[in-house]
């Protein structure tokens, strides 16, 4: 805690007490994450983690009180709390992926700004002549060790990439950012060049630049390069891969906090940051496995961003109506609903639940088949269906339900495409070859609710739509399900 040392010079007991309190909050974080990984304890886990954060913040405020500008500090806390609360309470659950991406970007950016602030602090100390060495010295010697220099540049680099990468992910999820390029930004060669340049700046800013002005200038350039690199890395990645990207960026924001911990010599930041980094990596790995692709493949393969190929090339598509589907459902003894991103876009989760309730009242067995990467965020569908009060016991993972499709009367696919594309199993040349998919075509009849025949994010044709036992029900998912509920009630 050398950074806070001036405040603590005469008060070792305060230093020791605060270290113990920090340890307490680290323990609360560990317990919190542990409990977050089980359904029954998850909510209490979140509470424990936020209690840990409160302890950490209160402890820090006690230490720095009197040493910092209170007005500016409180203003920052109030503004941040207001914005955070507003977004967290007001944003609809369907927009969760982009909200998480946004918060994530904020965390990474905060680490970056802390590092920049530290740089300017040490620079000014030297300018005022208060530092022991009056001659120009590089960051590593200035801050007391090469690890400080490394920690500073790593905070800036990872923090910057996390910020701009998360904002691009936010833009892609909200549909505001399209395409994989922004001028030259987004090309692999440009990315490689930017990465090399960033590494050079890390070295130059950390170990070579000597005057405070020069150090600051190099670090600000590094900030800029990191931001552009973040753009370039995430822009080429297709929307379907966003669950992976968000988990990975989540991991980065943890690593950035961890690096900041080394800058400030704060154990708590190191513990919390690396916990989040590890957790994010595990989730990323789970997502990649679900798509049967490697992380390298997700990041570097330009996967289906040019999706607008239109709906040509389909023959023998059978179109259906609400009335026909309702009649079909009347005699169905078993029903599996396969939700996808279209369900989230149309906010149709409550209508699905309504239809399923009707079916259950008639004695039909209702289940949901959830693909691990359906939607735009890990576990996206589970959150949506939970909002609509769908019982947890009705949700089935891919492995557990795939064998049951052949004994099922009706499957309703709502706004999903790539996750139930048979090509993944049949065509080794396909971009989604080998990805585990839901075998919905095994059911007696498969109804696909979709706005058009346009391809999903993978940008490929789905032969499911022209299969003999597939009926296409064109329309907005919510409207279509509404009609379906009405028709079913009338029968």
């Amino acid at each position, binding site marked *: 805690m050398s950074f806070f040392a001036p405040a603590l010079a005469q008060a070792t007991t305060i230093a020791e007490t605060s270290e113990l309190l920090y340890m307490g909050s680290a323990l609360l974080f560990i317990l919190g994450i542990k409990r977050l990984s089980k359904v029954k304890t998850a909510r209490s886990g979140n509470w424990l983690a936020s209690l840990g954060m409160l302890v950490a913040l209160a402890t820090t405020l006690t230490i720095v009180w009197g040493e910092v500008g209170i007005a500016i500090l409180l203003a920052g806390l109030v503004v941040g709390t207001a914005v955070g609360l507003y977004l967290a309470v007001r944003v609809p659950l369907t927009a969760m992926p982009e909200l998480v991406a946004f*918060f994530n970007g904020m965390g990474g950016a905060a680490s970056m700004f802390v590092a920049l602030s530290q740089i300017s602090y040490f620079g000014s100390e030297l300018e005022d002549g208060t530092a022991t060495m009056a001659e120009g010295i590089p960051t590593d010697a200035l801050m007391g060790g090469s690890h400080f220099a490394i920690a500073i540049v790593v905070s800036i680099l990872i923090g910057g990439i996390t910020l701009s990468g998360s904002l691009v992910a936010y833009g892609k999820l909200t549909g505001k950012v399209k395409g994989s390029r922004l001028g030259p930004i987004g090309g692999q060669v440009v990315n490689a060049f930017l990465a090399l340049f960033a590494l050079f700046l890390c070295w130059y800013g950390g170990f070579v630049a000597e005057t405070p002005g020069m150090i600051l200038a190099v670090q600000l350039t590094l900030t800029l390069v990191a931001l552009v690199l973040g753009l370039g890395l995430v822009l080429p990645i297709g929307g379907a891969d966003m669950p992976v990207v968000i988990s990975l960026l989540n991991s980065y924001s943890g690593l950035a906090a961890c690096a900041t911990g080394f800058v400030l010599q704060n154990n708590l930041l190191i513990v919390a940051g690396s*916990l989040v980094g590890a957790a994010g990596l595990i989730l990323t790995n789970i997502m990649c496995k679900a798509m049967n692709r490697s992380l390298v493949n997700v990041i570097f393969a330009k996967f289906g961003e040019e999706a607008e190929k239109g709906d040509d090339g389909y023959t023998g598509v059978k179109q259906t109506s609400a009335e026909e589907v309702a009649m079909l459902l009347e005699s169905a003894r078993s029903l599996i609903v396969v939700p996808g991103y279209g369900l989230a876009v149309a906010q149709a989760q409550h209508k699905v639940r309504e239809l399923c309730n009707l079916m259950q009242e008639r004695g039909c067995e209702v289940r949901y088949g959830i693909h691990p990467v359906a939607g735009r965020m890990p*576990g996206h569908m589970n959150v949506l269906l939970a909002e609509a009060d769908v019982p947890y016991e009705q949700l089935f993972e891919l492995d557990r339900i795939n064998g049951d499709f052949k004994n099922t009367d009706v499957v309703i696919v709502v706004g999903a495409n790539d996750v139930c594309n048979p090509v993944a199993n049949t065509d080794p040349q396909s971009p989604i070859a080998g990805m585990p998919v839901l075998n919905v075509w095994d059911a007696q009849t498969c109804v696909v609710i979709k706005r058009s025949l346009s391809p999903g994010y993978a940008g490929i044709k789905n032969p499911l739509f022209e299969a003999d036992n597939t009926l296409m029900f064109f329309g907005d998912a919510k409207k279509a399900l509404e009609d379906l509920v009405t028709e079913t009630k009338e029968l």
Partner: protein
Amino acid sequence: MTLALLSMDGTGVPFIVIGLWILFLAIFTGFELITKVPPTLHTPLMSGANAISGITIVGAVACVGVGFPVLGKIFGFIAIVMATVNVVGGFVVTDRMLGMFGKRGSK
């Protein structure tokens, strides 16, 4: 000279060594904690972990220190706002999501 600079408080063990110890143990703990997560919890877990990464708020509040230059304070203020958005928003939205799962249990 270099060694003296590396030591933090006269105990002779540089912070970087202690820091790396903590780093490796914490990463290992992180991996062990969540090897198995049901898909239902992927989003809340990610969102909750994301809120924890806002711990950088602890560093941010020290960046508006009296001795900091104006530029440093500006960066510090931005860092405080962003970290607070991350922390408050992250925990509240996670609780909101988990509340959805909770509703079912009470029925």
